[in-house]
């Protein structure tokens, strides 16, 4: 633009009267072109910034959708497995010779699944448990009571569809947790009471200072055990206490 004006001015040599308007116009046009170029760069930067911001939101949204879909998929699998396992346990107990006594089986399935977490993109994959519980009753004589262990209600918990991680409980075990010869029942709640006492005594006499340090630590686990007392279900409070006492004495002579 500057070259065009310079060639035009020196070629025609029309004096200062035509110099100023042409010069001003040239400068303005140059500035305009420069501003236009800078504006284009600004627009490009703005577009990149918008793409970065909304792209991040878009990718996070897609991650959440995939996460939800995979969770739903795992949950459906766990629910189907749980009910089929409960059904099989109930029918297999019936087939084992329970003479039609009610076999109520509750089966809990817990499957740990690796599902990507959109809130932690750098993680290898977060483990999300998909769990379900189902119960089934197989019987044609619902008024009978259980005579043997096999006829009792079962609670079975399976982790990751692994037979080695399958735990089975009978209702009798759960109720009679304190009964000799029976395994411990499910302990859902307990109270822990921990105390710590330290006492330091110093006796000063004419020859020395005798120091005695007594430290006592005690921890009590308090549980509510529900058991069958013969005349009905009773609840008993059981305290399990662990204590330790340390006594140290030393003498500091003058």
């Amino acid at each position, binding site marked *: 633009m500057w070259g065009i004006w310079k060639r035009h001015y020196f070629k025609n040599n029309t004096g200062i009267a035509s110099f100023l308007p042409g010069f001003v116009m040239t400068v303005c046009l140059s500035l305009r*072109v420069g501003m*236009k*170029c800078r504006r*284009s*760069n600004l*627009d*490009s930067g703005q*577009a*990149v910034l918008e*793409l970065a911001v909304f*792209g991040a939101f*878009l*990718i996070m949204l*897609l991650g959440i*959708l*995939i996460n939800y*879909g*995979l969770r*739903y*998929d795992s949950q*459906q*699998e766990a629910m*189907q*497995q749980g009910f*089929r*396992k409960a*059904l*099989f346990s109930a*029918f*297999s107990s*019936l*087939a084992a010779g329970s003479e039609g006594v009610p076999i109520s089986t509750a089966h809990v399935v817990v499957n740990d699944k690796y599902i990507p977490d959109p809130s932690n993109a750098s993680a290898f994959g977060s483990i999300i448990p998909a769990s379900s519980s189902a119960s089934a009753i*197989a019987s044609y004589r619902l008024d009978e009571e259980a005579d043997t262990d096999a006829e009792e209600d079962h609670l079975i918990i399976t982790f990751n569809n692994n037979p080695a991680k399958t735990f089975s409980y009978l209702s009798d075990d759960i109720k009679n947790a304190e009964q000799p010869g029976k395994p411990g029942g499910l302990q859902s709640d307990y109270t822990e009471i921990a105390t710590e006492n330290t006492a330091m005594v110093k006796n000063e006499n004419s020859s020395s200072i005798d120091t005695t340090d007594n430290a006592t630590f005690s921890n009590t686990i308090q549980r509510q055990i529900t058991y069958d007392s013969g005349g009905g279900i009773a609840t008993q409070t059981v305290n399990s206490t662990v204590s330790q006492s340390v006594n140290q004495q030393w003498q500091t002579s003058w």
Partner: protein
Amino acid sequence: MRINKTRGQVSLEIGFALFCILLILYGTWNVFLWVNRRIIVRQARYDLSRTSAGKITSAEVQVSVADLPRLDIFAKP
């Protein structure tokens, strides 16, 4: 000249970004279809095997996960 160069760069960037966005959308759409197919096929097989699972003498009947649809993003529809 500078204007045309900037415009070309912007067009190139837009073209590249659009390609990436469309690729992400295509992949997500295929993942969505894959999850849907798995859920539907598993439910159908679960319903079909209900009778055999309810028999007293039969073994434990579970829906096999091995033959469910696999994720293949660039598979032919």
